[in-house]
């Protein structure tokens, strides 16, 4: 064995270094081996958004565990991490029992891939739950495709509400909040001084939706393979946003990050007079900065007055251990009593008609504003979710949006590039 007999010290070292290099490289290239906690039949695993871990839901989940003698494994993630983990889980077949859906349409995308269940039969067998009759139609239809419903609405919100600091606007001579884009710019200019910005744009691309919706721009029309059309109106919307940062300097350039709470933090620190967001920012502002005289009003009017629909739902993975048990927890989490408790705790708005009709909601000034915004949410293209390309196309738009808002890229060319790439992705 001449080859073996020549294994001198140098050969050993070479072999060792080679194996080490391959091993180190392999560590990065080896496929992920996802680990999920739902293998034990007495453990019930839930994936949830970290920002929505309200006490109202904790109580329901704890009680559910007691009633069924289950160990409740409530895992909380930021949205991108939840998506990654879920994708890995679907790949491995080791899935949780219940998942909070990122947004309307995500469930449809997973459902068409046969990774989550259509819930119509479970809902039909449980008429006491009131689905879909007691739910606002827009929240339901955004989760349906070809007659099947892939998730149950948990929250229903509108992005584009105007948050403003009443004291700052008053000091600048404004008794009323702005209602149009022109007024918004005027107030933003007047309130920008020293270390305070008139407004603050978000680095998250989804926060641009109210702006382009207000120019009657549709994000996607999958059947026509078109994006951000009409093009001229989309350009007006994005140019307006870019000008707020670079021309009028009434908003700091946002920082690229996965955290969408930057504008809320600036507002809470009294370093921004206004910003556009949704009901999820009411709780942090009221709790963190109770001294701010918070004003909340309906979305602005560009060519039209409009908001974008937001809010997640609940979906059951196709390989969940016991879908009926998962459904039971859905009915508890999306019950009107739980919705009312979560609203009281966090200011979150909900999709049930009976929730909206409850006196505690109907008489709440903030909820009244949200209800008006919900009435003007722009229609969503369910075809994009069904195409299975929504995440890929959103990533392309995220790149274009950040190039425009953070890197000051020319709007028209950047949007044209996005349209071309999005069309190719379809």
């Amino acid at each position: 064995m001449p080859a073996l007999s020549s294994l001198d010290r140098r050969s050993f070292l070479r072999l060792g270094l080679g194996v080490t290099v391959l091993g180190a490289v392999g560590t990065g290239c080896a496929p992920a081996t996802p680990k999920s906690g739902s293998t034990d039949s007495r453990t019930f695993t839930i994936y949830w958004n970290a920002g929505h871990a309200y006490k109202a839901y904790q109580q329901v989940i704890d009680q559910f565990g007691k009633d069924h003698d289950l160990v409740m494994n409530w895992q909380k993630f930021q949205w991108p991490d939840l998506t990654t983990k879920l994708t890995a889980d679907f790949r491995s077949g080791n899935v949780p029992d219940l998942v909070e859906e990122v947004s309307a349409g995500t469930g449809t995308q997973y459902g068409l891939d046969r990774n989550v269940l259509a819930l119509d039969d479970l809902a039909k067998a449980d008429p006491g739950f009131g689905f879909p009759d007691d739910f606002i139609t827009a929240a339901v239809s955004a989760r349906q495709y070809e007659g099947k419903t892939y998730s149950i609405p948990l929250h229903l919100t509108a992005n584009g509400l105007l948050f403003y600091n009443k004291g700052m606007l008053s000091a600048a001579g404004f008794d009323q909040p702005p209602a149009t884009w022109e007024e918004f710019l005027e107030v933003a200019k007047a309130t920008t001084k020293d270390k305070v910005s008139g407004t603050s744009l978000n680095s998250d691309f989804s926060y641009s939706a109210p702006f382009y919706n207000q120019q009657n721009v549709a994000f996607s029309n999958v059947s026509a393979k078109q994006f951000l059309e009409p093009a001229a109106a989309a350009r007006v919307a994005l140019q307006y946003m870019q000008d707020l940062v670079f021309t009028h300097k009434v908003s700091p350039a946002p920082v690229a990050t996965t955290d969408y709470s930057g504008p809320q933090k600036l507002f809470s620190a009294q370093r921004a007079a206004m910003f556009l967001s949704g009901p999820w920012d009411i709780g942090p502002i009221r709790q963190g900065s109770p001294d701010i005289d918070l004003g909340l009003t309906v979305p602005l009017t560009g060519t039209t007055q409009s908001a974008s629909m937001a809010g997640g739902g609940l979906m059951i993975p196709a390989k969940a251990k016991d879908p009926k048990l998962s459904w039971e927890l859905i009915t508890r989490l999306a019950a009107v009593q739980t919705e009312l408790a979560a609203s009281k705790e966090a200011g979150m708005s909900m999709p049930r008609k009976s929730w909206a009709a409850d006196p505690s909601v109907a008489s709440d000034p903030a909820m009244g504003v949200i209800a008006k915004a919900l009435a003007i949410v722009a229609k969503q293209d369910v075809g994009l979710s069904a195409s299975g390309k929504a995440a890929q196309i959103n990533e392309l738009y995220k790149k274009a949006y950040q190039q425009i808002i953070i890197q000051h890229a020319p709007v028209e060319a950047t949007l044209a590039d996005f349209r071309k790439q999005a069309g190719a992705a379809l």
Partner: protein
Amino acid sequence: MNRRRQAATAWLFLSPAVIFFVLLFFLPIGNQLLTGLYDADGVNFVGLDNFTRALGDPEVVHSFLITLGYAAGTLVVGTAVGLGLAVILNQAIPGRTLFRSVLLIPYLTSVSIIGLLWRNILDPQVGILNRLLDQFGLPGQTWLSTHPLATIVGITVWSSAGYTMVLFLAGLQGIPGLYYEAARIDGAGPWRRFFSITLPLLTPTTLFVSIIGLISTLQQFALPYIVTGGGPGNATSLYAHRLFLVAFNDNDFGYASALSVLLLLVVLVLSLVQLKIGDRADAAH
């Protein structure tokens, strides 16, 4: 002990490592290679299509080029900083043990913590650094927006400088003092001693630092993902981040596997080139 027995003994001692690497590294790599030959659903065999597609994919090419830039910047600056610190802390200065320990702390800290820490320091609006600058009447920085990749390089160098320093310290302490004494007697100044004795005798350490550094920088994912999310635009979307997006965003595991195999090949080739250069440098001295 005859040669046959010697070889058998060698294989006996090698076998645990061989089994470990075969099961945990080579088989998964083989699996990746195989997956890369199939389409997104892993059903249809597409041959080398995924590999050729990568070469014409502008997003992949962009991510590869900025990864090379990131790796080069990190290696050059990181090696220089680590060597500089090692030379300084190899001197008999008071408190050197404390300095060595403090400098090593970032390397021992999780990359997630480091990412979050620096994000909170550098955020132009709510970050600590700009608040400090403001206290001294200085203008605020916007590095995460204006120089995102250089900022990520800086954070990487900061976090790995202690580790590089320790490696160079070990190398420095292996150089016999006799050489320096002889050079001094011959009238060589500090710079001459550094360039003619220290640097050449540190070649194996430099080689190790650069190979391990190259491998880790070409695979870098977590730091830019946490600090900038790959943005703004795609300015910090390194190759591993692109690979991640293809797998978990586009749900195209065939293409993602091909990208990971290409990364493996690039790292191997670059490592072999470095080894060759190192061998030559070693022979020259």
